[in-house]
């Protein structure tokens, strides 16, 4: 019946095209930067160093990429007739139909499909064993570029996976990247020279280091990064994510170490890469578990011929989005694409619950590394060694957010235990980072720590089932944080590479565009709004949503009240240090005349991006959780996140529901919002008092709590801790390994070389030629034995003759014994 009803719908044959078209557009957007990269790497081959062409190429690539993604987004909207933006309870239904129809018409082609519960039945219409309760649709398109390898049953491939989240991320990333590329043209302008003098590097002859400029190289790296970042977003399986995961790691390594002659830069680059590798170590373990127990890396289901292979999500959550846990709660049964238990030669496939938890934690470890969460947060501040546009693009807006993206994307596989872990990691991180940000005076580092802290918010949100809130915040944060970084970049450029806020002040007179766009960003991140009315900048809505779901969570699980307190308090801290930053930099009177004299507003090529971003930072979240952005995001939200879920595992936690008006979150929403706003305002006014009114002298407080202050300045002493805990031991062990080779293995071989030297004159010659090694052992021993044998060969004829007799007698004895009696 399903088939019958499906065949003659108007949307027949449209959806598959949708899939292909989306795939095409996004692929173009994804690959263009790569092409750009190749061109720019060899830019010098067909141009000279003072040419800006490389930059234009890069901008063109990413810009076209943005247009493609935007088109894709709009096209998708049309195809689904913007069902996503309509009211939630309605959209689930209608959209599901559209998706369903199209899918059926298409599934014959087996490439690029939108899976849907109905046609899962349509395809095996003959067994309607369980009631077709219509669950909300999964609307995504997935397909394969090409296979990397195939081992009998197993299959590793490069896939694409497109849903609204993908589209939003694509649009966001490409847009911000475009802005930053343009900004960078201005920012990196002084690299357009044959003789770039670097004042931070002192040669051993005292002079400054000077080198040819690296304009084109910078843009090459940026393009490489954009390519890898988009790759993550587009990936259709976890393995592919890992691939691009490493590639963004590489490009961040290259960009952080852009000034390769600076020791600090290259060290920071190594630190970033290696710490990410630590995270990836966990990621790898998670992948092993998944790979071994599920036998696939795919996110979505894949139709091959007339059979549909379930993807990871389906296997874990099935069609209704429920874990199929055995009675004793120890085993989780895998489910196939038809809503049954997956079977292999008769036996139902299952994975131990603990293993599933381990897998979740492992994958999350990857996110920890990439998003600089506790305990791997220390690399991100050092990463500020890179040029500021890099910090804006890579280390605030996109790459570090990839960790959150992964966690969100992989949400279906996470059990409540894992989510709890995520929540607490996020909670700790957001607090630690915020506190450190209080005392930092380097303008970029303040932003860096605030980035970490904001990422902590997102992680927390995911942990407390605020899936939509997390991604909501991800997007808004991307806008305002990149805005702020660009502003700081503009400040730095204006002040000729002065980054220390204590030397600034009053700059708003000199560079007002920068100053006020910055202010927008500050207000946004502080989450301020006009009290009473819930009208604020983007940050207000998203943080609001997070705090709300945190509150809901802690109401349902009173044990975890901390998960609400920490973000609430930190909201205040955040607004405090952000305003501190703004006041110190732009308000007040100049503290360093010299800097003030020479600083100037930047050319329009740098300020325009600021304005554009400022607009979006202010308005992107328009409408809050009713608004289009949030709707778009949650449209791709996976089923279980919406409803209230009680854990079956070890940790007895209940995940709040937050869909519709009677959900747990909705109840507490206004309360949470108010609380957050209050703490934010408190923070702001404190900053005002300290740094503008000077009613309280910061230095006094500093002396009061000098212990705490130093502790914070030392970044909670994490670096020294890791130094002693890991780095030193590694070097010791490696030294030990070598000494084992040199001191144990070889001596087993080299034994008694000295003895040989003494043995005889000739032996010394022998020693120089052969000695050492196993050679020695055999060599020496044989040589000595040989020497001792010389003694028998006395050269005395009579003794020789004597030996004849002796020999005969001895042998006779020997035979006498061997021959049996």
């Amino acid at each position, binding site marked *: 019946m399903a088939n019958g009803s499906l065949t003659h719908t108007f949307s027949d044959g449209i959806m598959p095209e949708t899939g292909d078209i989306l795939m095409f557009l996004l692929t173009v957007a994804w690959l263009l930067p790569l092409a750009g990269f190749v061109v720019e790497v060899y830019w010098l081959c067909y141009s000279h160093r003072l040419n800006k062409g490389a930059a234009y190429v890069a901008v063109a690539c990413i810009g076209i990429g943005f247009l493609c993604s935007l088109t894709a987004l709009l096209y998708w909207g049309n195809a689904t007739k913007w069902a996503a933006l309509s009211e939630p309870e309605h959209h689930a239904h209608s959209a599901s139909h559209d998706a369903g129809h199209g899918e059926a018409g298409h599934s014959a082609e087996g490439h690029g499909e939108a899976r849907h519960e109905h046609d899962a039945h349509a395809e095996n219409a003959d067994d309607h064993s369980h009631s077709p309760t219509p669950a909300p649709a999964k609307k995504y398109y997935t397909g394969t570029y090409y296979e990397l390898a195939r081992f009998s049953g197993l299959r590793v491939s490069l896939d694409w996976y497109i849903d609204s989240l993908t589209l939003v991320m694509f649009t966001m990333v490409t847009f911000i990247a475009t802005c930053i590329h343009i900004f960078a043209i201005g920012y990196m302008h002084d690299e357009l020279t044959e003789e770039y003098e670097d004042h931070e590097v002192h040669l051993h002859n005292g002079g400054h280091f000077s080198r040819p400029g690296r304009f084109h190289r910078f843009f090459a790296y940026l393009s490489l990064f954009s390519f890898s970042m988009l790759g993550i977003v587009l990936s259709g399986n976890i393995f592919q994510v890992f691939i691009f995961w490493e590639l963004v790691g590489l490009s961040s390594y290259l960009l952080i170490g852009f000034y390769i002659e600076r020791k600090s830069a290259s060290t920071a680059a190594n630190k970033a890469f290696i710490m990410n590798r630590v995270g990836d170590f966990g990621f790898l373990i998670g992948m092993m578990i998944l790979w071994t127990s599920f036998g696939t890396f795919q996110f979505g289901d894949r139709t091959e011929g007339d059979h549909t292979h379930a993807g990871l999500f389906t296997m874990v959550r099935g069609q209704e989005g429920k874990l199929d846990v055995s009675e004793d709660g120890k085993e989780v049964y895998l489910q196939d694409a038809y809503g049954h238990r997956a079977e292999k030669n008769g036996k139902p496939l299952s994975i131990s619950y603990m293993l599933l938890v381990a897998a979740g934690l492992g994958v999350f470890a990857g996110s920890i590394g990439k998003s600089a969460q506790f305990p791997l947060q220390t690399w991100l501040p050092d990463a500020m060694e890179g040029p500021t546009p890099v910090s804006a693009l890579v280390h605030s807006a996109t790459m570090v957010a990839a960790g959150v993206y992964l966690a969100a994307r992989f949400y279906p596989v996470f059990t409540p235990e894992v989510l709890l872990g995520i929540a607490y990691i996020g909670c700790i991180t957001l607090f630690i980072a915020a506190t450190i940000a209080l005392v930092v005076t380097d303008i970029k580092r303040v932003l860096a720590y605030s980035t970490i802290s904001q990422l902590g918010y997102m992680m927390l949100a995911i942990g407390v089932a605020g899936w939509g809130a997390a991604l909501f915040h991800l997007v808004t944060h991307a806008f305002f944080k990149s805005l702020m970084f660009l502003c700081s970049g503009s400040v730095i450029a204006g002040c000729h590479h002065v980054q220390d806020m204590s030397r600034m002040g009053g700059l708003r007179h000199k560079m007002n565009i920068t100053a006020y766009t910055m202010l927008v960003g500050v207000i946004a991140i502080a989450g301020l709004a006009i009290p009473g009315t819930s009208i604020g900048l983007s940050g207000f809505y998203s943080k609001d949503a997070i705090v709300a779901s945190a509150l809901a969570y802690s109401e349902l699980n009173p044990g975890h009240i901390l998960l609400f307190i920490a973000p609430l308090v930190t909201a205040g801290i955040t607004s405090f240090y952000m305003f501190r930053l703004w006041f110190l930099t732009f308000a007040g009177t100049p503290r360093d005349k010299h800097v003030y004299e020479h600083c100037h507003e930047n050319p329009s090529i740098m300020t325009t991006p600021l304005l554009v971003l400022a607009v979006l930072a202010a308005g992107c979240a328009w409408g809050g959780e009713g608004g289009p952005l949030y709707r778009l995001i949650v449209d791709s939200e996976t089923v279980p996140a919406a409803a209230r879920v009680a854990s079956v595992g070890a940790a007895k936690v209940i995940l709040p529901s937050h869909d519709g008006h009677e959900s747990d979150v909705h109840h507490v929403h206004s309360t949470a919002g108010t609380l957050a706003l209050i703490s934010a305002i408190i923070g702001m006014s404190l900053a005002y008092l300290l740094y503008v009114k000077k009613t309280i002298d910061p230095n006094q407080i500093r002396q009061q709590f000098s212990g705490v202050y130093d502790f914070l300045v030392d970044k909670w002493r994490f670096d020294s801790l890791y130094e002693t805990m890991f780095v030193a031991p590694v070097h010791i062990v490696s030294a030990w390994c070598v000494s084992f080779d040199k001191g144990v293995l070889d001596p087993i071989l080299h034994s008694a070389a000295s003895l040989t030297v003494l043995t005889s004159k000739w032996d010394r010659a022998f020693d120089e030629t052969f000695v050492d090694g196993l050679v020695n052992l055999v060599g020496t021993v044989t040589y000595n034995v040989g020497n001792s044998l010389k003694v028998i060969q006395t*050269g005395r004829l*009579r003794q020789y*003759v004597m030996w004849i007799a002796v020999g005969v007698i001895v042998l006779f004895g020997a035979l006498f014994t061997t021959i049996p009696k």
Partner: protein
Amino acid sequence: MGEVGLNAYLTVGAVLFVCGVVCMATKRNGIGVLMGVELVLNGANVNFVAFSRFTSLGLDGQTIALFVIVLAAAEAAVALAIALNFYNNHLTIDVDRGNELQG
């Protein structure tokens, strides 16, 4: 008077043999050593002849003995020549003086 048995001859042969070996192993004089060789060979000859008299070996024994005598002569000749050469080079036939080659 029973005639002398095989064992008596064998004993003589054995005694000759042992004397020869001892002589070779003890004499320092080269010629003496060569004499020892002769003793050994003749000890063997006695056995041959004795066996040919008492056992089924028959004439073979005698013949072999004859051959051995001839060979012994030849060997002795060469040996003496070598001894002479040795004397020419060392001005002695004390075999112990020939100890340059060793080790």
